[in-house]
């Protein structure tokens, strides 16, 4: 219980700071909205093309905006070396990882909450025809992104070129997550909705999250201690 209580404290600390500054969430949301607007001008508003392209647009917006938020959230821990204070606290270091990952997942979900309706609005993508599986896939996507991303962002915290390195090391590992997320969304907004395929890819997302959560938990402490 202590692990989750302490993880909650770390997450709430991040969200409290963000609620006060609103720096990361505004940047992420604005960037996601910008991507959607650019895509909406770049693609013809033909519903067949939209059905094929919208899932990719949504998950690309989440990936890019999420990476910005991830980098900034960990930069905050670098500014006054507060990551050291968290790692020095008498709590399981796993609680630090979980707390950071929970806060990042919340921010990614905020991006999804901005990007999804904008895609529906600008491109007429039928994203809300099956809202429940879509929401589940986005939540699982946010958890996967946050758990893998938090490990790498924490590991690269003291590396000078971390802004460049983070997406370079992160995206190859996230490819299965984005393939599954895009495929699930595609199945949900296809002309003939394929719920079986959607749930298959959602299950894949769940397995991906479980696997990478275990790997992240296993490696986090050894990666953040110098």
């Amino acid at each position, binding site marked *: 219980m*202590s692990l989750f209580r*302490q993880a909650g*404290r*770390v997450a709430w*600390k991040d969200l*409290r*700071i963000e609620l*006060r*500054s609103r720096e990361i969430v505004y940047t992420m949301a604005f960037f996601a909205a910008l991507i959607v607007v650019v895509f909406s001008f770049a693609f013809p508003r033909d519903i067949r093309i939209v059905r094929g392209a919208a899932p990719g647009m949504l998950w690309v917006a989440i990936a890019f905006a999420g990476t910005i938020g991830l980098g900034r959230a960990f930069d*905050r821990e670098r*500014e*006054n*070396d*507060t990551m*050291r*204070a*968290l*790692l*020095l*606290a*008498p*709590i*399981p270091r796993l609680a630090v990882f979980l707390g950071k990952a929970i806060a990042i997942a919340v921010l990614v979900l905020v991006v999804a909450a901005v990007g999804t309706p904008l895609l529906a609005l600008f491109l007429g993508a039928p994203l809300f025809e099956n809202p429940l599986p879509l929401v589940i896939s986005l939540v699982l996507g946010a958890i996967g992104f946050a758990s893998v991303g938090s490990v790498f962002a924490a590991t690269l915290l003291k590396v000078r070129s971390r802004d460049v390195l983070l997406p370079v090391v992160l995206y190859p590992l996230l490819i299965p997550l984005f393939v599954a997320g895009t495929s699930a969304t595609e199945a949900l907004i296809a002309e003939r909705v394929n719920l079986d395929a959607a749930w298959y890819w959602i299950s894949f997302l769940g397995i991906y999250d479980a696997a990478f959560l275990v790997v992240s938990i296993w490696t986090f402490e050894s990666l953040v*201690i*110098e």
Partner: protein
Amino acid sequence: MREPLSGVQITKVAKRYGSERALAGVTLELASRSMCALLGHNGAGKTTLLGILSTLVRPNDGKVIYRAGTAEVTGIAVRREIGMLAHASLCYGELTARENLELFAKLYELDPGRAAIDAVLDRVGLEPRARDRASRTYSRGMVQRLALARALLTAPSLLLLDEPFTGLDRGGALALGTELGKLRDGGAIVVVVTHDLEAIAGRTDHVAILRRGQLVFEERGSYDYERLKDVYHQHAN
């Protein structure tokens, strides 16, 4: 259940960063009710040794044993006993002094209440009207006082201080020196890395000097400013 540390045994500790040698087989014993001045020029390995003592840097070789009475303690039990003042404040700029201390108190499973937090802030001399302001608006000296309050909040039995007098005026530095003397007399192990020999003169009772990662001098005794200066210039260069 807290177990205050009674001693730390550092044995043949070595640390490399790539091909760069930061520490080479340092052996040192720290005892409770003592204030160890860890001295040396820049790059001598002092901060690395503090990092290893804080459990945040893993040595490539050698070991550090923390004792509470006769028992060896490890992991979370050790971290609960460590208070650290580093180059950076280890505090969140968006939070106020009180919020920072409340956060860290909770992470240490303490519930100090507003009065206890104010008492710590009084001890370090952070003025009351600044306590509810975001700490990013603080001057360098105020940040240093907050960082010290964070380190003292949990009543640590091993206090690791890296240049604690930086940013403090002469009065603040002397007050801090007195505070550290009190902590030592209360049973804590105090380790101070500093170049301000005047501030620790008359208070430190253990001097260790590092040069290029090696311990070149270690002695226990009483040190006035002149003696500290002599010992430093003789061995650090």
